[in-house]
């Protein structure tokens, strides 16, 4: 269920008659209350990350980020995202094409199954891969015989991340492509265009912004996943430690400033994601 609300739902508010517009006082009280709630719930946690990371000065901040373990965690996090996001994007586009352009039995079941990883606790998302590839798992003995490591190694981290970020792109595209129907593609077929060209020239321009939106959400989660990765990583510093896990390790060692410094990198990722998100939303509204 995590983290995705269809872009298509955003609309510009309708103009309202004076009778339903709140009187000045009520309006400003409600706005004030809402700003207070937002500041408390969302702005405060954001501000604390920045303030705590700089508490012991810029030197400590820079050292924490330039630390070899932090750098290798950053590299691993980027690597995991580079593998996971394209794979889930290809799946999302393929699934959305099959689901929205054709009629077939069991469509609703397929849509529900795609959503499954959002309903499952991330810790379970890690656990299931341990049950399949771990030392005592289904393929464990075989993997050991062939000297292959999945759990407590890079493949396990990638698989667990693929699981938790699985629905993002598909979920964004399905409602969008459903709304757009298939007349334009059918027209292209009549004009003699085929296969991939139809997708590239007709479908893609229409879904571009929604697709990008799904990709950045998928990416943010892939780089930030904690629970699922925590189960399969083994927490080996400099090897199987991602940035979020590095935040935890530093925190548990009471290196708070360093921990928040690394956390600020992830905060930056979140802020860039939000910035791109509102840009894509504006573009898509302009488009339609």
């Amino acid at each position, binding site marked *: 269920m995590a983290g995705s*609300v269809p872009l298509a739902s955003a609309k510009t508010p309708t103009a*309202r008659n004076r009778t*339903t517009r709140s009187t000045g006082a009520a309006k400003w009280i409600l706005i004030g209350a809402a700003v207070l709630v937002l500041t408390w719930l969302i702005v405060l946690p954001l501000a604390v990350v920045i303030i705590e990371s700089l508490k012991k000065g810029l030197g400590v901040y820079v050292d924490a980020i330039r630390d070899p373990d932090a750098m290798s965690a950053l590299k691993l996090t980027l690597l995991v995202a580079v593998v996971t996001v394209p794979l889930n994007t290809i799946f999302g586009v393929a699934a959305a094409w099959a689901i929205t352009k054709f009629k077939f039995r069991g469509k609703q079941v397929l849509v529900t199954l795609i959503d499954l990883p959002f*309903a*499952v606790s991330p810790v379970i998302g890690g656990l299931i891969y341990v049950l399949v590839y771990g030392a005592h798992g289904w393929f464990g003995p075989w993997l050991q015989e062939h000297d292959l490591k999945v759990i407590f190694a890079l493949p396990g981290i990638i698989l667990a991340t693929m699981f938790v970020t*699985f629905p993002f792109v598909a979920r964004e595209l399905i409602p969008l492509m459903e709304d757009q129907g298939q007349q334009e593609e059918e027209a292209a077929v009549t004009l003699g265009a085929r296969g991939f060209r139809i997708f590239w020239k007709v479908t893609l321009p229409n879904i571009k912004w929604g697709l990008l939106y799904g990709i950045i959400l998928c990416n943010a989660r892939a780089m930030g996943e904690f629970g699922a990765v925590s189960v399969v990583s083994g927490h080996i510093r400099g090897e199987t430690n991602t940035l979020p896990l590095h*935040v935890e390790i530093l925190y548990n060692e009471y290196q708070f400033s360093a*921990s928040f410094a690394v956390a600020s990198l*992830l905060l930056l990722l979140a802020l860039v994601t939000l910035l791109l998100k509102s840009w894509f939303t504006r573009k898509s509204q302009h488009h339609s």
Partner: protein
Amino acid sequence: MQTSASKRGGLPGFGLTMGYSVLYLSLVVLIPLSALLLNSTGLTWEKFWDVATDPRVLASYKVSFLTAAAAGLIDTVLGLLLAWVLVRYDFPGKGLFDAMIDLPFALPTAVAGVSLTAIYSQNGWIGSLFEPLGIRLAFSPIGITLALMFIGIPFVVRTVQPVLQDLDAEVEEAAATLGASRFRTFRKVVLPELLPPLLTGFALAFSRGIGEYGSVVFISGNMPMKTEIAPLLIMSKLEQFDYAGATAVALLLLLISFILMLLINSLQRRVRKTAR
């Protein structure tokens, strides 16, 4: 599965995209999940029952449920306020306000976890205000609830917002013209329309809260029987190589998640229908 393209509306690529989707879905989601359901750890019924009724396990479920429900309820009220203000009023900085709502979706949970702990611990900005009153925020169920509130708030706002936008202003205007007070109009006309999305938002926040791990482990203190959540218990059983025990706790959690998901799906269909 594959039938002639003409039968399916003339567009190409059904076999390829459908085949690939099902294969990828099976490899990444269905087969690994079935490892849990097919009980690869040799978990017997007795063992399952032993684990499921263990006081520490039951306590962890209770903590997870109560905190997720409390957070979901508070988020429903606060989320309605935020959505209302965003849809109904214009004010400076509204665009930024709107964008910030999604921060919990984009921020890695571990970052939220350490940050919230810093705010609510004894010497934190807010925690220190409550310490003299003898109220501990961090390392108590209150702390867990606060973390889950952060995680859940965008679900409520983003579910209520589009429905509120589509709400027919004319009905409200009619009610006002007929002499209904503003509060009465809200209660009798607006609230019934908003009930399905509010319920959906609550269910989404609740469902996410039950499975949440990253933002909670730092602030909860993880005391068995008191502030230990169910996902953490799975984690600690795994760390002790008790795979059967971890599977037992996970199975129950998974079952609850499935039921919630089906409930949310039917709720969302209803919301979409009224919206159209």
